[in-house]
């Protein structure tokens, strides 16, 4: 029986050890990239939000590893739940060395994780006012300049026909009569309401100040002219197009590529997908004609940031990678050619751009743009509060544009409190 007892203790012990080992294993992986022993070069990991460049970024990471021997791990993302995933990773200690930070609101929340990049060489090349600042620290390097508006099929739509409310609506009505989707949105938060809700904010004289006043209750959306018109636009869109709730980003762009949709509300990032579809018509980007607006909405989609919680060696390695990406020939080639970015750096020349990016670049160079107000919205207001409002607007045919704006007002109050 002594055997048995030993056996039992042994087994229990083994089980315990294997458990501990399993836990240790998790740490070990990290250790591999962190410590990985001193003589080897310090590895880094990247977690970022832009799904469109996932594969290209991995290729860039490989190229970097080949050149320098520094291992780079690119952690996959689905885009939508990036913020949650990042929070989980940061909390359990498996945070990436380089992450993306969307805007100032997010930066404020993550303040203690953001490394001050002010003194680094490459940040001096960031185009004016494009850097992400937190107080007087520079915490984010812009990905690229991006813009959105109405992406239209030139064979079906003449931009002259969508320059104000009346012509826009009559264009929609014409398409509706022909059985063509005149204006496509899609069901995901930002593509349903997030981006398009920018216009009434961005057309204010000082959008940021307006939003502050809104949060303080000094102004209301319902009493603001731009929002009243916005409500009318949304009503016209709902009444003359199939519901966007049945559409995903992919089908929205796909239907456009197939010629079943004449216009979609999208940004220059959609060009990559249109390219994959090998569309056989020309397309362009036009401003959304709210209150006769004739400017594209141009801004920075996201920013590279370095995780300050990592040890100095890893931070340095991360900075070196960003430096390589923005300063070396290979890195710049990746940004321009592979990512298809419109660089937000003065030392990187834009390459051969697709028609959408070309439109954004021209607008950006001429200064004829309106800002991205959604970067200053209360954190997560778009998926949390605006989206349910927009959904109920599209579901209930009898809800008016005015009620939509009232509900957006309530949603804003809920988020800003």
């Amino acid at each position, binding site marked *: *029986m002594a055997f*048995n*007892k030993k*056996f*039992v203790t042994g*087994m*229990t012990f083994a*089980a*315990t050890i294997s*458990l501990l080992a399993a836990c240790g294993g998790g740490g070990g992986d990290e250790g591999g990239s962190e410590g990985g022993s001193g003589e080897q070069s310090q590895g880094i990991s990247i977690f970022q939000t832009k799904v469109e460049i996932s594969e290209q970024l991995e290729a860039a990471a490989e190229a970097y590893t080949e050149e320098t021997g520094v291992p780079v791990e690119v952690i996959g993302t689905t885009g939508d*739940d990036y*913020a*949650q995933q990042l*929070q989980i990773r*940061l*909390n359990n200690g498996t945070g990436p060395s380089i992450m993306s930070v969307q805007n100032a609101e997010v930066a404020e*929340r*993550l*303040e*203690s*994780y953001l490394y001050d990049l002010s003194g680094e060489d490459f940040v001096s090349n960031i185009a004016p006012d494009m850097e992400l600042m937190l107080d007087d620290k520079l915490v984010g390097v812009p990905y690229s300049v991006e813009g959105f508006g109405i992406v239209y099929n030139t064979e079906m739509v003449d931009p002259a026909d969508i320059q104000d409310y009346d012509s826009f609506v009559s264009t929609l009505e014409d398409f509706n009569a022909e059985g063509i989707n005149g204006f496509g949105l899609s069901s995901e938060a930002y593509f349903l309401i997030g981006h398009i809700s920018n216009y009434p904010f961005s057309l204010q004289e000082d959008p940021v100040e307006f939003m502050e006043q809104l949060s303080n209750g000094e102004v209301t959306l319902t009493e603001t002219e731009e929002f009243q018109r916005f409500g009318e636009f949304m009503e016209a869109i709902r009444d003359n197009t199939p*519901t966007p*709730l*049945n559409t995903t980003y992919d089908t929205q762009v796909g239907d456009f590529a197939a010629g079943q949709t004449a216009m979609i509300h999208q940004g220059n990032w959609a060009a990559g997908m249109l390219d994959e579809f090998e569309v056989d018509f020309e397309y362009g980007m036009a401003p959304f004609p709210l209150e006769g607006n004739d400017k594209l909405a141009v801004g920075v989609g996201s920013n590279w940031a370095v995780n300050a*919680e990592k040890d100095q060696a890893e931070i340095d390695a991360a900075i070196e990678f960003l430096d390589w990406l923005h300063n070396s020939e290979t890195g710049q080639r990746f940004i321009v050619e592979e990512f298809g970015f419109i660089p937000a750096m003065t030392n990187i020349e834009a390459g051969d751009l697709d028609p959408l990016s070309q439109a954004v670049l021209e607008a950006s160079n001429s200064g004829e743009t309106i800002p991205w107000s959604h970067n200053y919205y209360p*954190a*997560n207001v778009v*998926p*949390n509060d605006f*989206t*349910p*409002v927009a*959904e*109920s607007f*599209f*579901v*209930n045919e009898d809800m008016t544009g005015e009620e939509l704006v009232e509900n957006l007002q309530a949603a804003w109050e809920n988020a800003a409190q």
Partner: protein
Amino acid sequence: MANRKKIGWYLIFTVPLLLIFTLIVLVPFVIGIYYAFFQWDGIGANPMVFNGLDNFVRLMEDERFLRSTWLTVLFTVLSVITVNAVGLAFALLVTSKLKLANLARTMLFMPYLIGGLILGYIWQFVFLDVFTLIGDVTGLESIFFNWLNNEDFALFALVFVFTWQMAGYVMIVYIAGIQGIPGEVIEAARIDGASGWQRFLRITVPLLMPAFTISLFLTLSYGFKIYDVNLSLTGGGPANATELFAMNIYNEIFGYGNYGYGQAKAIVFFVIIAAITLTQVYITKKKEVEM
């Protein structure tokens, strides 16, 4: 010595499980209770502010949470009824002298083997394309439209898919119960002149009580805790019309960044489920009959 040997075996099987259970269920649970008394955004480096019972007080006035509570109750009640009715019907069907009983049994169980997430996406497609197509073809557009885009029907869609998934599972439980009913009892009843319905109601149902206890418990707790199908089928929409408990808590914590408040909801959620399921088990246990 024999006793010792037994304890040894006992340990082998329980200690690893106990360890795992403690690590991933008990410890987080206790920490969760602790967090429920703080105001915190869930980011490790940011400050946690103790605010006593404020989170629980706030919860009583949170309309979205109360609505979500009502929806969850509605969903659970409806699904418990449909899942068990359909599951029991399936079980009776495949234990009858049907030729294809074995095949049917396998096929009916299959949906359970598909993960809830995938299932939600499959059904999203069914509601979007197949339902609208049937509506177009048959002209019954008032029944066959995209349920997921209707604030009232979206919840029924959820019940429908959950039933489709779970019915096969509780069917197995009922089959086991039905097969455990001695043939002579039923035969005796038949000789006494009991009709099929009477035999079912007076013999099968009382003797199936243990199976009811288990099935009701499983569907009740699964129904309350549902998240995966909810996420992939409706995502809580349209307009939060299908935002059930678990999703509401997730959104509170990760969407609004109210970690402490979300934890408070989770605790309340736990208490409610525990109370309801335990009551149910207590009641149905009393109804069980000894042979």
